[in-house]
C-alpha cells in the first residue's frame, strides 16, 4: 500500500526516493502534513525550473544526506 510520501498529492504520480527526500528537505511543513509534490508540481509551486530542483537533489546527495538515493 502506498503512503502519503509515495505519491504526488497534486497529480498522483508515484514519487521517487529523491523526490520524497526533497519534499522532506525543503517543504518539510507540507510533507509533515502529508502534502508531497513530484518535481514538476514542486517546480510549479516554487516558480523555478525542474532542473534547479535536480541540482538541489545532487547537492544534498553530495553532502551525504541519507534522505536521497
Amino acid at each position, binding site marked *: 500500500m502506498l503512503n502519503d510520501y509515495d505519491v504526488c498529492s497534486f497529480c498522483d504520480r508515484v514519487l521517487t526516493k529523491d523526490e520524497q527526500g526533497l519534499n522532506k*528537505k*525543503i*517543504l*518539510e*511543513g507540507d510533507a509533515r502534513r502529508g502534502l508531497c509534490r513530484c518535481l514538476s508540481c514542486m517546480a510549479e*509551486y*516554487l*516558480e*523555478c525550473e525542474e532542473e*534547479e*530542483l535536480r541540482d*538541489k537533489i545532487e547537492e544534498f546527495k553530495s553532502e551525504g*544526506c*541519507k*534522505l536521497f538515493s
Partner: protein
Amino acid sequence: MTKRLIYADHAATTPLSDAAWEAMVPFLRDDFGNPSSLHSWAKKPKAAIVEARETIAKCIGAEADEIYFTSGGTEANNWVINGSTGGLMISSYEHHSILNSAENARKKGRKVSFVNPSPNGSILTRNISRSWLDGVGLVSVMTANNEIGVINPIKGLVDYVHKQGVLFHTDSVQSIGHIPIDVREMGVDFLSASAHKFNGPKGVGFLYMRKGLSLKPLIFGGQQEQGVRAGTENVAAIVGMAAALKSNCDEMERNIRHLNLLASQLKAGLEELCNGVYFFGSKSELQLPGFVSASFPGRSSEGIVHIMDLKGVAISAGAACDSKNMQLSHVLKAVKLPRKYAEGTVRITLGIENTDEDVKMILNAFKVALR
C-alpha cells in the same frame, strides 16, 4: 534569461572591495619580494606592510606596533586563548574558534567558565558574578554576535572586568569595518579581526594587543611580527586588508545609514508576510547595520534557505538538520529562543552593494518560501 542573484549573507563573507583589489594587484605579481630580505626587492613589500599596519592602527585608535598580522580571525582567537595564562571566562555564544580553543585549554588543565547572554542576546555586566572571576586571567566576549547581530556593551564589561584585575579580549570579527571601533575608548586588551568580513581578502586578519602585554606565541619560526608570530607575510592580503578597512571606515556613516534603511524595509516587509515573525534587535538592544535575524515560528530555516537559494537569494540558517533531527545552533540555544522559533530562524545580512531593488526581490522570494 539569466536569473538575477542577490547576495544577502555578508555575515558569512563579503565581496572584495575595489580599493582592496587595486591595492593588492602589484603585490600578487610584480612586487613579490620577501619583506625580510636584505636586497632591494624587499623595499616595496616592507614599506607596504609598514603603511598597512599604520592604516589599520589608525582605523581602530591603536598604535602601529600594537597590530599583529595573522592568517585570520580564527588564528587571532586561538592565539589569545592559547597564549594567555590563568583561568578563562568566555561567553557561551562565542565563535567556535574561541569555544574550541577554550575546550582545548580546559583539557590542558585551565579553568574555563561561561557567561550566558540575556534573552535579548546581550552579555551584560550583571551576567558576570564577581566571584566567578576568581582565578580568571582572561575574559573573552565578542563585540557583536555573528548569528543574531546583537552588539554587546563592551566598554562596561571591560571596566567591570578590569576592576577585578582581569584582562579582556573581544572578538570583533563581525563588527570591525561596520561599526565604530576604538580600542582605547573600549579599553580592551586584545581584539581579533578578519579581513574577509569587511570587504578584504580571505586568509588574513590581525590581533590588536595593547602595548606592554604579551602572549605565548602560537606559531614558531622566523622573527616576523616583532618576533611573536612567525611566517613570511602575506603582503598582498595585508595591503588589501588595510585598504578595505580604510575604505569601510571612511564611508562608515553613509554605509550605516544605507544598511539600517534597507534592514528596516526588509523587516517591515517580512512582518507583512508573516504574522508573528520575531526579530532579534527589534527592541532596545543595538544591532549591526544591515543585520536581520528573523524567526518564523513553526517553519524550518533550512527549507527557507534552500527555497531562497532556488529563487537566487543567498541567506543563512540558524538550524540545520542531520539525518534525524534539526540541530539548533549553539547561539540560539544560548539565548534560549523557544524551539518553535529557533528552528525557523534565518539570518539575512545586507551589504553595502545591496539596493532597495534587492530588498524587494528578497521579499518576493520570501513570499514563495513562506507560503
